[in-house]
């Protein structure tokens, strides 16, 4: 069984009375532990696809099976639970809550899923230490560099031990050195068995993936597997 299976998925937005087909008839299977890059020009639908995979959005038609379960039948609460437990997001602009410290930001998903505070504290401290941020626990985002912020965001995405990591341009706001560090961390997570899907414009980043998807005009134009893995 594939971890992810999309069947005839369409996503249609209506913009100013006109229908825009952001995704057309996508059929896609992704197995556990794959490392996938998703590339394509702006407006090709790759972000829309990522949002669908992350359960932030719903397909207009078609089915999305996550771990064999059809997500289109889930209600808001079940979707939220699935996002909290199975999926970790990493964003281009980090999306850290600016008034919260690094530790508090990483704690958020645990708090929302009801983990007691004592457990939260130790898990978060361990994870941030793994990210090389042991001395930055009580710093706010504006006291951290871009690379450090993205590492906090990755810690937040992985703190609930999700099987699927979705990264939307994770290096887009970073210089090449910290971008490289972030990719290293993400690849390490993939090496530990997590499925990793990276949306990127950066060809070097995209080439490192084991499976490269290319989107054009809402269609999957290419699906290349390299044997590097």
């Amino acid at each position, binding site marked *: 069984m594939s971890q992810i299976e999309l069947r005839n998925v369409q996503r249609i937005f209506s913009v100013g009375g006109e229908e825009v087909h952001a995704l057309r008839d996508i059929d896609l299977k992704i197995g556990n532990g794959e490392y996938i890059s998703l590339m394509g020009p702006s407006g090709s639908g790759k972000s829309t696809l990522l*949002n669908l995979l*992350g359960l*932030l*959005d719903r397909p207009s038609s078609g089915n999305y099976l996550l771990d064999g379960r059809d997500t289109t039948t889930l209600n*808001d*609460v079940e979707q*939220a*639970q699935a*996002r*909290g*437990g199975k999926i970790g*997001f990493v*964003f281009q*602009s980090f*999306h850290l*809550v600016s*008034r*919260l410290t690094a530790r*508090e930001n990483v704690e*958020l*998903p645990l*708090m*929302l*899923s*009801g983990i007691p*505070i004592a457990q939260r504290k130790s898990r978060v401290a361990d994870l941030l230490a793994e990210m090389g941020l042991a001395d930055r626990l009580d710093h706010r985002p504006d006291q951290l560099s871009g690379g450090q912020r993205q590492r906090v965001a990755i810690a*937040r*995405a992985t703190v*609930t031990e999700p099987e699927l990591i979705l990264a939307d341009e994770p290096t887009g706001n970073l210089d090449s050195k910290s971008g490289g560090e972030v990719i290293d961390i993400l690849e390490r997570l993939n090496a530990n068995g997590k499925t990793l899907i990276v949306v990127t414009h950066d060809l070097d980043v995209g080439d490192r993936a084991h499976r490269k998807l290319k989107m054009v005009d809402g269609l999957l134009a290419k699906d290349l597997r390299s044997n590097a893995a």
Partner: protein
Amino acid sequence: MNSRDIFRYSFQSIERSAGRTSLMLLAMAIGVAAVILLTGLGEAARRYVTNEFVSLGTNLVIVMPGKSETAGGAINASFTGSTRALTIEDAIATTRHANVVGVAPLVVGAATVQYSGLEREVPVYGATKDMLSIRKWRMAEGQFLSESDWTLATSICVIGSTVSEELFANSSPIGQWLRVGESRFRVIGVIGNTGTSMGVSTDEVVIVPVASAMTLFNTDSLFRLLVEANSRESIDSVRLFVSNTIKARHHGEEDVTVITQDAVLATFDDIFNVLTFAVAGIAAISLAVAGVLIMNVMLVAVSQRTAEVGLLKAVGAAPRQILAFFVAEAALLSLFGSLIGLGVGLAGSWIASRYFPSIDMRPPAWAVFAGVLVAIATGIAFGIIPAQRAAKLNPVEALAKAK
């Protein structure tokens, strides 16, 4: 997620956005302080008037010479125009009733009092023994007028404490002869400080037997006749008795006005209840204004924090949890705001009472509780709309807004 986490998260939000928080706390605090101060003021006015009347004595029937009526008209024309005197004999007649516990005829005038070269212009009361208990005066020194024949003009007097201090300095006035107008009176007592009653302080007065006062001021009529009933329930029967007795003595003519303090008090009570509710209404409006302000600031907060809401949704927050965060935040803000308002309101009424001791501005307990509870309820109610807006945000759009 338990409620401690919800409140911790909301508290952090309040704590770490000082500008927005202080604005909302100010709005709530002003609302609650307004409730407390305004109702306190209304209550103070009511208490002031009630006290003025109660200090006259309780269960009183008050007789005034003369009848207020519309003069003129063909039939009544010949009976109006002259006022018969209310005499000491009338007063004596009203004592003959089982429910009457005290009768105090009163004559009021002003005279110059003199002692060893010092002069002072003072109000002079002509009274009898019962005046002491009816007006609830206390003696500081010596004794009050004793029971005696009311028609006897004896030369004794009781003086107020200010009169005593001014004329006798530190020596005891008891037994000294005081010149009042053209006559001399021996001082037998000093009245203690009882505060002001109907605008006249007992500290300032000289009290002589009623017959002496009538001689002094050359009058044959009492100014007032105070009749005290033994209970609130018997006031009506006493009033009827007094009215009938004096009517019979005045050849069947109703030429005096008889009022009961009870009726006057009840009227004032009604007026002040209406006043207090009007004041509470004004206060309620200020709470509603505070609530609307909270709603606006919360709406701004929600749109400022759209990205945060999107992020929360992305990391697994259900709509109910988002709702809980924002409602908890509104609740905490209203709670802290009301507590500050409570402090400011109570401090304000305390300070007012310090500067104006005669006005007791303590707010009624119901107003304090209602003010705080309504404030918190308003804050929560007006926090729900922005919170619902946050909970309904589309996560994809919310996240996109951050850039």
